[in-house]
């Protein structure tokens, strides 16, 4: 029974997604009223189910059936039900429920109303899939859905060039870092023959059957690469402030609450791997702290409220990642929950900032005190200027994803040339043929 309930957490948004898509496919999109009703209730139920199962206090892995098979290998649907995944599932359900209610008024009469709710449902399904997944392939599935919906919602106002460019940028960064997740899946299969999580009775955390510290380091680092993109970690996080192009509620739930915390969640899931590898743990801590410093420094100079909040998110996610690297799992969980609530609320009321300032001024009875006296007092004038410019330029890291993509492209071109040379060597040269990669140059 518990198992059915647990799986229903995920099935609710999935079935709703199917209903909504079919309605749209047959050019019969539901009206605003019914769309919101369905989405609101499905996430409310998901959250309630997650909380209900959580009270049972059990940890188990359930396999409702086979997913796909390749040759003699069969992958099953695995769902990992333990306090960690249920807390995250409940948080996801509650926040999406709130956002769905909020958007009912916020997006009222907007031409993309239905599209927004469809993407929100798909996103919810993706997050819950990552959260409840019992193996890495399923994580990958959910991970991609989250990435896709994220890019599509950034580019929600597709008639303007800014949103599409920034949506594309987020998508590229995700794809680049997905290499890490995909490679981790392959490597795990290579070394252990499976990517399933294993549950130890009554212990919330899962184990992989990895024997050597070397493999653990490789897989740990690959998973970290996967998190870089999704959680906007240093040095590829430049997409995060640029993602503030969509409607405010989607910015709030993606970049304040859920999407950015999926990286830490994956690291939490993979804790045992990091316990086996000091190098990987150290890398996590270093990346986390670098992100926090970078986010905090760049965030300080942002003159727009959404930019400042985005960098605030980046800072806190960096700290959370560092906490995980240091082995402070439950602190990290508390931090994630707290940060998700605070940031969602802050982004939702970002348009109120003028009101708030005025109110604050009235309360304090004076002009708001100037902040940011720290660096000004600590640093010599020359350095102060440089640091400020550094922050305004977003550090040297703003174009990093483009450099990496450039490198990737060059590498592919190199392989391609090398291959063609080899072909020539074996005498099958065709001077007319042009490499497909050359064409897109």
């Amino acid at each position, binding site marked *: 029974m518990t198992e059915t309930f647990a799986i229903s957490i995920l099935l609710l948004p999935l079935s709703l997604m199917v209903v909504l898509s079919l309605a749209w496919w047959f050019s019969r999109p539901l009206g605003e009223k019914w769309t919101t009703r369905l989405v609101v209730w499905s996430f409310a139920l998901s959250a309630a189910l997650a909380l209900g199962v959580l009270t049972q206090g059990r940890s188990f892995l359930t396999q409702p059936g086979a997913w796909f098979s390749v040759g003699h290998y069969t992958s099953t649907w695995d769902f990992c039900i333990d306090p960690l995944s249920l807390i995250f599932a409940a948080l996801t359900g509650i926040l999406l429920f709130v956002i769905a209610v909020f958007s009912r008024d916020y997006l009222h009469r907007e031409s993309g109303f239905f599209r927004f709710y469809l993407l929100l449902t798909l996103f919810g399904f993706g997050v819950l899939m990552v959260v409840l997944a019992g193996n890495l392939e399923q994580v990958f599935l959910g991970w991609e859905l989250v990435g896709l919906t994220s890019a599509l919602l950034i580019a929600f106002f597709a008639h303007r060039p800014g949103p599409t460019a920034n949506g594309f940028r987020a998508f590229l960064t995700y794809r680049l870092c997905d290499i890490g997740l995909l490679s981790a899946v392959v490597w795990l299969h290579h070394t252990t023959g499976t990517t399933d999580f294993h549950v130890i009775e009554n212990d919330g955390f899962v184990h992989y059957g990895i024997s050597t510290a070397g493999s653990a380091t490789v897989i740990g680092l690959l998973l970290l690469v996967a998190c870089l993109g999704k959680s906007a970690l240093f040095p590829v996080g430049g997409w995060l402030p640029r993602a503030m192009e969509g409607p405010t509620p989607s910015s709030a739930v993606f970049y304040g609450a859920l999407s950015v915390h999926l990286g830490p969640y994956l690291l939490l899931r993979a804790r045992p791997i990091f316990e086996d590898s000091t190098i990987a743990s150290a890398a996590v801590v270093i990346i986390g702290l670098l992100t926090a410093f970078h986010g905090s420094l760049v*965030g300080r*100079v942002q003159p727009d409220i959404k930019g400042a909040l985005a960098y605030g998110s980046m800072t806190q996610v960096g*700290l959370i990642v560092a906490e995980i690297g240091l082995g402070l799992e439950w602190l990290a969980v*508390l931090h994630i929950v707290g940060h*998700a*609530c605070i940031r969602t609320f802050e982004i939702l009321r970002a348009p109120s900032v003028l009101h*708030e*300032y005025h109110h604050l001024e009235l309360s304090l009875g004076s002009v708001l005190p100037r902040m940011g006296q720290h660096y000004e007092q600590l640093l010599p004038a020359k350095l102060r200027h440089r640091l400020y410019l550094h922050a305004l*330029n977003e550090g040297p890291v703003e174009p990093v994803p483009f450099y990496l993509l450039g490198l990737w492209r060059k590498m592919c071109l190199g392989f391609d040339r090398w291959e063609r040379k080899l072909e020539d060597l074996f005498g099958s040269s065709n001077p007319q043929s042009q490499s497909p990669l050359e064409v897109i140059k």
Partner: protein
Amino acid sequence: MTIAAKRLANEQVPDFDSLIEHVGHLLPSQAPIRRFVHHNTLHAFEHLHFEEAVVEAAKLFDTEPFPTEAFFKKQWEDGRITVEDLDSVLPQDDEQLSTGDWTRREFRLFRLQQFLPVAAPAKVKYEITEGGCLEKIHPAVSEEARKSLLDCGEEAHTLKALWEGLSKELSPQRIPQDDSKKKLVAQTVHPLMIRFCGVYLDQGIAYWPILREGGFYRTFLSLFSQSAGPVLPWMKGLKERLQCQIAERWNAEKALEQALRQLGYRTEQWEQACLDRALALRGWAGMIHQLEHRPDLAPIAAPPCRLIDYLAVYFQLEAHLDTRYPQANRKNFPRHEKNLSLLHEAFLLAQFAGLGPNSFGKPQDYKDFLDEVVNFHEIERRRYLFLAFEHHYVVSVLDSLQGHHEQGEYRRSKAPRFQSVFCIDDREESLRRHLEELSPEMETFGYAGFYNVPMAYQSLDDVHSRPLCPVAIQPRHLVREVATDEDTAGKRAGRMKGLGLVSQTARAQRTGMIGGFFMNSLVGFLAGIPLVGKTLFPGLARELTHTLEHTLVGRVPTRLAIERNPEEPPNEDGYFEGFTVDEMTDIVAGAMKTMGAVELAPLFIVVGHGSSSLNNPHEAAYNCGAASGGLGGPNARAFSAMANHPEVRKGLAQRGYHIPEQTWFVGGYHNTCDDTMDYYDVDLIPEHLVKEFEDAKALLHRACVLDAHERCRRFENVPTSCSPEQAYQHVLARAENLAQTRPEYGHCTNSLCIVGRRDRSRGVFLDRRAFLVSYNPELDENGEILAGLLQSVGPVGAGINLEYLFSAVDRAGYGSGTKLPHNVTGLIGVMDGYSSDLRTGLTSQMIEIHEPMRLLNIVEAEPERILKILEEKEGLRALVERGWILLAAQSPKNGDFWVYRNGKFEAHRARNAWIETVDTSIAHYKGRRDHLPCAQVRAGLR
């Protein structure tokens, strides 16, 4: 140095001042967003006639001049534009056309009625090859036209001949190409400019403010000449360039000149070049220009701003880009192609008009026909459709009013029990109407919401003062709100400060690392409570917060420090603190005479208005325009205090204006968003009027409830079946709902301004579309009062109306687009998303139900008197003559209507002088969401 460069260097330096002035004049003149005041978006084009100005502006700003044909098609189908309207606005042109049996005017009249589905060029190719448009006559073609086409021969053959005939005579057109350099600049220079403008103008969002050294240009130099690690490829070498400028002590003028020369502009091209660049990010450039001339508008303190600095930085960056990528300068040569859309249009039109190949005798006929089609192009058609749409509205309103007049239904309460004056604002029209419907003993007036008190005001808690009078007036008097009991006020301020410090600390940790860590990990989850509460139960959350605030902070009784000694000198800011008795007497006498209040009731309530809503950066746009976008309550309070002042009453009596001794003035404040009313200095009301006041208060509350109900019919997410009480509860919660993007519709749908006695419009349902200005022609012997009124009301009404008009005509070009991705920056404005130009104008959510049309001013005065005023007052004449407002007159003597056209008044010829009669306003609007015609409300005429 090349010869060309030498020649350039020897040229005379032009006068940058006049160049900057000209460029600045064309930039949006929107103030920082909390000081938003409605103004004519195209103020820079007021020297032209409206119809010409919109077309010129559209060319310059790349915007729409008129609403789209799709909009007019809808109006046509709804009967809001008729053939008669089109016929009235089309000018005479009796030239016979070579094709078809009609004159040019007849052709155009026919054309305007055809909303042809003309395809885009790419789609035309599809229509020809796959869509079968050469095989079948268009299905929407009338039976008659079809018959005459088929007379020419077999269907496909006829169409083919027609197509080919037209196609042969169509000459290719120049098609402009994308400017690749502009694109490159937009990708490189613009993001940097936006960032830099953002931090430079920031008034307190960034935790770490920029170190401003000198002006905009100097700060840019000192900042970007630093080395701070790797930079974007295009910025390489910029540092050295700027260091060189620092070493040679350049100023903005020099930097601008150098860049212009480097980019190869000749002196006479400079102005155009500067204008292009300023308009590229016109929101930011406009803000710099605004703060240069009105630094007092900045929310905290304006940094030194000069438009020339902005241009210098922009041009320096562009010149640098030019050095880095000289190949981007490559010119694109325009292509020449046949305009397939035009061909398609002519082809369809010929079909709809039933003109087959037989009607075209010779090739020249095809050519002539094409010329006719081209000459009556889309912009022209939209112009006439716009005029016809307006005309229809004007005729229908005047017809209704004439119908009302002919029934002789003018009422004035003989001895009113209560009197109240409201702002002329269109949103108060419904409140006044409901009030009069509720009680025949209530008389209402309309007067500009600053109530003739030209003051700067500072409330008990305010840190700065702000002007509460029309923008055109520079206030010289400051009025403060002071606590009657200093002790309790001090304690209260202490408690407020405590609360303020808590939220200030929380705010400071928004981007902080260490503080942020503690806040998020330890208490972060607590944010879930307001998050869920405010989203799910906005109404309940509102009550809780208010109760909590009331308990924690409390209120203290206050008074306005209104009176000053005539000898007292101005304070250090140059303000006189208060008014002298003489000044107050002038103020009260001026307002009372203008609004024509002669016989005063015992209780006179003066109501100011404002609006409060959450999550709404454009909040100031909903406030009182006559109070410079501030809350108008204090003006009503100040006016009442003045009128109650015994010395002032004495002074008034000396001037022949008697306020009866038992009459008492009470100031009030109407919140147009949640429809609540507050009253000031209630404890001072004399004993004998306390009961009367309670009755009046109950009456006003009931009127507010009904007002809320009428407003709710426009909100699609409120069922039309809701009761007035439900509607009232809804608007209370709506104002506090974080998710609400349209807390109220503001001046949306405004279209009318009636200057005259209220008894002439009393009992007429005007659908919250009319500004109502009280004016009694009988008390105005020589027209002086009217001249003053029109001079202030005309431009204010035009400003509001035209801002709504343009924002509705082009939501993205003149308006600021949808609110959903808006991002408040620097406390001065909003951007779209992460980085964009500063958005000016109104949001789509504010204007979505607005009907773009110019304001029709109906003035109760003889046409001769109005013409005389126009002759004398040049500013007003310009507005009227150049068609920025429409003008009509109603004769006070016989009630005839006159319409102003081309410099003179013509008698209004009614099409159908009739007005629908209903019992109450509710009966008229119940269950309906669309724009409603005028109606006579019996309840208001008791």
